[in-house]
């Protein structure tokens, strides 16, 4: 049985027909072809699939596409202003070499942006590490990811994003 679903993805209307059991991440990747959002563990642990739904970071592998009906979804593809101008969080990840294989990076960046906003652009290292509980990285040891997020917080504030 298919169900029509419509939402806004990165500011543009997106719709399709899905099964009730279609996950949001499957809708993004397989229906819309937006493969920036990754599936890592598929068991709600790793956070590679994090996107924003109505302004909140969520694991898109643990949400049905139909639950996002009418919602505003932001994925990693929706962050950069242009190919030349990255979002301050993406720029900070690049500057601080906050990735190695890069698989966890989209989810890390999406969680990090939500984290910075929830803490009103003011973070310390302990908070960043605690807030990263829902995102696993198996390469970096997290050190440069933490550095990047701490650097991005003031950059986001001054950029007004």
């Amino acid at each position, binding site marked *: *049985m298919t169900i029509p679903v419509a939402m806004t993805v990165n500011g543009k209307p997106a719709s399709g027909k899905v099964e*009730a059991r279609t996950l949001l991440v499957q809708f993004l990747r397989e229906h819309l072809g937006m493969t920036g959002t990754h599936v890592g563990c598929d068991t*709600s*642990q790793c956070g590679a699939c994090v996107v924003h739904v109505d302004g*909140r970071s969520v694991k898109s592998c*643990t949400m*049905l596409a*139909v639950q996002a009906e009418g919602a505003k979804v932001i994925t990693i593809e929706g962050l950069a202003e242009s190919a030349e101008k990255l979002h301050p969080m993406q720029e900070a990840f690049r500057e601080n070499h906050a990735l190695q294989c890069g698989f966890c990076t989209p989810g890390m960046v999406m969680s990090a942006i939500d984290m910075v906003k929830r803490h009103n652009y003011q973070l310390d290292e302990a908070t960043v590490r605690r807030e990263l*509980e*829902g995102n696993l990285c198996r390469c970096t040891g997290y050190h440069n990811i933490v550095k990047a997020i701490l650097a991005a917080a003031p950059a986001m504030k001054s950029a007004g994003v």
Partner: protein
Amino acid sequence: MYDFHYHRPKTLADAANLLKGKDEARPMSGGMTLIPTLKQRLARPSDVVDLGGIKELAGIKVEGNNVVIGGMTRHADVASSADVKGAIPALAYLAGHIGDPQVRNRGTIGGSIANNDPAADYPGAVVALNATVTTNTGRHTADNFFKGLFETALSDGELVTSVSFPKAEKAAYMKFPNPASRYAMVGVFVAKTAGGVRVAVTGAGPCVFRVKAMEDALAKNFSSDAVKDIKIPADGLNSDIHASAEYRAHLVNVMARRAVDAANK
């Protein structure tokens, strides 16, 4: 995941009607347990009734001496609520330590207590604070609500609409989290309210339980010294790859002392 019929009612009455008479229909609140369960094909509901569209179920309000939290209120909203932080800071702390930020953005209090996972955090708060669970058909006292492993007093089609927590004079929650899942290997909620002192333990046994000996000792002397020699028998406690029953029994005492110290700060 097996496919199912999906419903997103706008009112509680519609949700109850959709669940009525369908043995294999399941309500879904945050989905943080149900969706992983469905993905592993451990459940095969005919219908999933998503409570996410029912506006009346979410929200926090202070009513006299109680903080009333709607069943569909997300953990993140309880953790950041000025009302909860003001009245029962231990409850905000508990909500802020469930799972991870993304889980807290979806998971709900109603879903958590209706599921009654033995390692869930909220049952500890509900029992220690002697909260009242309101549903679409009635009310349950905390002591009567949690019945056993994943079992509650809820009947088929009965939905948690709100949980009312009396304000506490002193309260604290301390848990020893599983380092991977952040579920409580052992969590102890200690509360001193107008109704007396209660100590509720989650994670250690098949279901949340109270420790009467600790409650009696703390009623006389609300200090960690009062409970330091009270041992919990390991019989019947959970034993798994994460911790033996003996280790959990030991942790109950450690977490209880830490909770009392935190409540006294």
